[in-house]
């Protein structure tokens, strides 16, 4: 009897498998995006509108995404790498060209942003912008006020000047563990070309960073969100959106922690997260529909209002919350925008020099 029951359940399990297989003909799109990076109601609305089921998966570092893409057969139809990673991935043959005829909403895009992303993806043939932001200074307003006697930070000097940073050492300084973001900032502060690959310039950046190294508590690319929000540290060199997340968490926690973000006046690096379709994607038509939907002004504005990043969609700006649109740390004014710079991906040889320099800065070896 038991054996018969087992057989029955095995058969029914088998049948279920088959029925699921049948449903696979339903339209699906597999999306791989950064964690905490979309208002989930957007995905529900998309499914309601088009009948395409969205399988949404998230990552938290470009390196993880890149490794999956380079290994091939990732199974994703839409991925969102940062532009400097995207540039190299295009060279490696990871992506397919977008079919612009299927993307009518592309006319909504903002030339200020697409001109810059074209440096990574010539002609924007492989990608469209999702969100963009800056690398700047996140800080605990009260603690900085206590240590420095000012509650307004507007210059890289606060980080690269050893005398100033020494005053912040005790309340805690975190820095992104990302040489491609910090070394260009050091070059910019020194008045050099942030895109420089000359070993002499990199050595100068190393020297500047080694001078402030004793005052940095930790190099890490995500811990600073919590550390800022909890009031454990007073300064973080980090990505704009992460700092805004920390600011929101601090507000929700109501522990009196107030977080500020500043785009340094010397200029800051811009980063862009770009939507692209892998060459081996299974659902190309659905992927285009999904990307096109995210270029609808109301939709992408909703996403910006939720994740607090600026997007590269000009037409969406009338739908973006006024407070966000007028916040110059999110949508910098024209003068600041002129000083923002982009950094090209390094060739493998320079990459090795950069990583080695970084290891020396971080570990002292």
């Amino acid at each position: 009897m038991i054996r018969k029951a087992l057989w029955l359940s095995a058969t029914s399990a088998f049948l279920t498998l088959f029925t699921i297989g049948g449903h696979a003909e339903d339209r699906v799109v597999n999306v791989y995006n950064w964690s905490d990076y979309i208002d989930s109601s957007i995905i529900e609305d998309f499914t309601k509108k088009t009948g395409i089921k969205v399988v949404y998966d998230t990552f938290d570092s470009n390196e993880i995404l890149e490794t999956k893409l380079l290994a091939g057969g990732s199974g994703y139809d839409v991925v969102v790498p940062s532009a400097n990673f995207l540039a190299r991935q295009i060279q490696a043959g990871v992506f397919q060209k977008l079919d612009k005829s299927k993307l009518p909403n592309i006319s909504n895009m903002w030339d200020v942003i697409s001109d810059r992303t074209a440096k990574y993806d010539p002609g924007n043939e492989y990608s469209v912008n999702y969100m963009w932001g800056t690398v700047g200074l996140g800080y605990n307003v009260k603690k900085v006020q206590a240590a420095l006697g000012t509650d307004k930070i507007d210059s890289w000097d606060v980080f690269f000047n050893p005398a100033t940073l020494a005053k912040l050492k005790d309340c805690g300084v975190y820095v992104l563990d990302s040489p491609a973001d910090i070394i260009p900032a050091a070059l910019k502060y020194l008045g050099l070309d942030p895109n420089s690959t000359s070993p002499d310039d990199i050595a100068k950046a190393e020297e500047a960073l080694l001078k402030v190294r004793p005052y940095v508590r930790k190099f890490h690319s995500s811990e600073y969100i919590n550390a800022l929000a909890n009031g454990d540290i007073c300064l973080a060199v980090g990505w704009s959106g992460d700092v805004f997340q920390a600011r929101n968490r601090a507000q929700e926690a109501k522990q009196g922690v107030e977080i500020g973000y500043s785009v340094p006046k010397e200029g800051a690096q811009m980063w862009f997260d770009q939507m692209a379709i892998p060459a081996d994607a299974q659902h190309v038509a659905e992927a285009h529909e999904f990307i096109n939907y995210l270029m609808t002004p109301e939709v992408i504005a909703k996403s910006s209002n939720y994740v607090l990043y600026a997007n590269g969609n000009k037409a969406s700006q009338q739908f973006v919350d006024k407070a966000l649109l007028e916040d110059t740390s999110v949508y910098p004014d024209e003068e600041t925008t002129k000083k923002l710079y982009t950094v090209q991906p390094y060739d493998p040889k320079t990459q090795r020099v950069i990583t080695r320099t970084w290891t020396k800065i971080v570990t002292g070896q």
Partner: protein
Amino acid sequence: MTNIAAAASPSAETAAALPTRLAKGFVGRLVIIIPYLWLLFFFLVPFIIVFKISLSQTAISMPPYTPVLDFSEGVSGFFAGFSALNFDNYTWLTQDALYFNAYVTSLIIAAISTLLTLIVGYPIAYGMARAPATVRPTLLMLVILPFWTSFLIRVYAWIGILKPEGLLNQVLLSLHLISQPLVILNTYTAIFIGIVYSYLPFMVLPLYSSLEKMDYSLIEAAQDLGCPPIGAFWKITFPLSLPGVIAGCLLVFIPAVGEFVIPDLLGGSQTLMIGKTLWNEFFANRDWPVSSAVAVILLLVLTVPIMFFQQAQARAQEQGK
């Protein structure tokens, strides 16, 4: 191998027993083959793939190294790719002291942590083994219980305990034992705490199983004959528990050498361990060949001494007989 096969075949052979004998021989072989197949597929094959990549060169392509060996260009293409393999990546590892230092730091950190885990784990295992038989299952359960929570979350919890405004400092401050918060997080001390905490069950369980089997009348005999308790421990208990000590130490030491998560979350940025170096090569430099070479060397560093150790032990055992 032959011993087991011989043991499986019956000594008295009759025509009627022949099918059974064949079946038994087959089953006997199968029993041996399965673990070998397991090792072949889940250890040797992945190792050969990693070793092959370590002989390749990095490239901007999918996958990010060259040459890729495949038969699509015929046998000659396969061999052309084969001849392009070389040991350059291993030479590279010797040219920068970084790699050597990372290996040495990892081995030292793992060794110290293993010793600390042993010191903490031995009394626990001893207490468990001497506890009344009715309580032992509960105690065992308590040792295994932490595994029911994600490892990552447990390590994260230590951040909350060890940070300057954390639980530990607040307790110590409120008891007036210290006047300044202790800086523990982001130091080597925090790494040791993390490793000892995470790997303690791997030490306690083998120790417990060897201590539990021990015959305690031996201790009584020693004490009857006038040996003080400490002497009895070092002369009888500890030597008898040695297999458990060795198993526990290996179970802690080997994963601790390659540990990545604990130093990343609890350690400071200055900690240079081989896990992080490997991560850097693989993810930051996108250099799969060099990171594979780092991994192959790590494997050699770990397995070769262990093999020698086992050989020496086997020899010692035979001499003992």
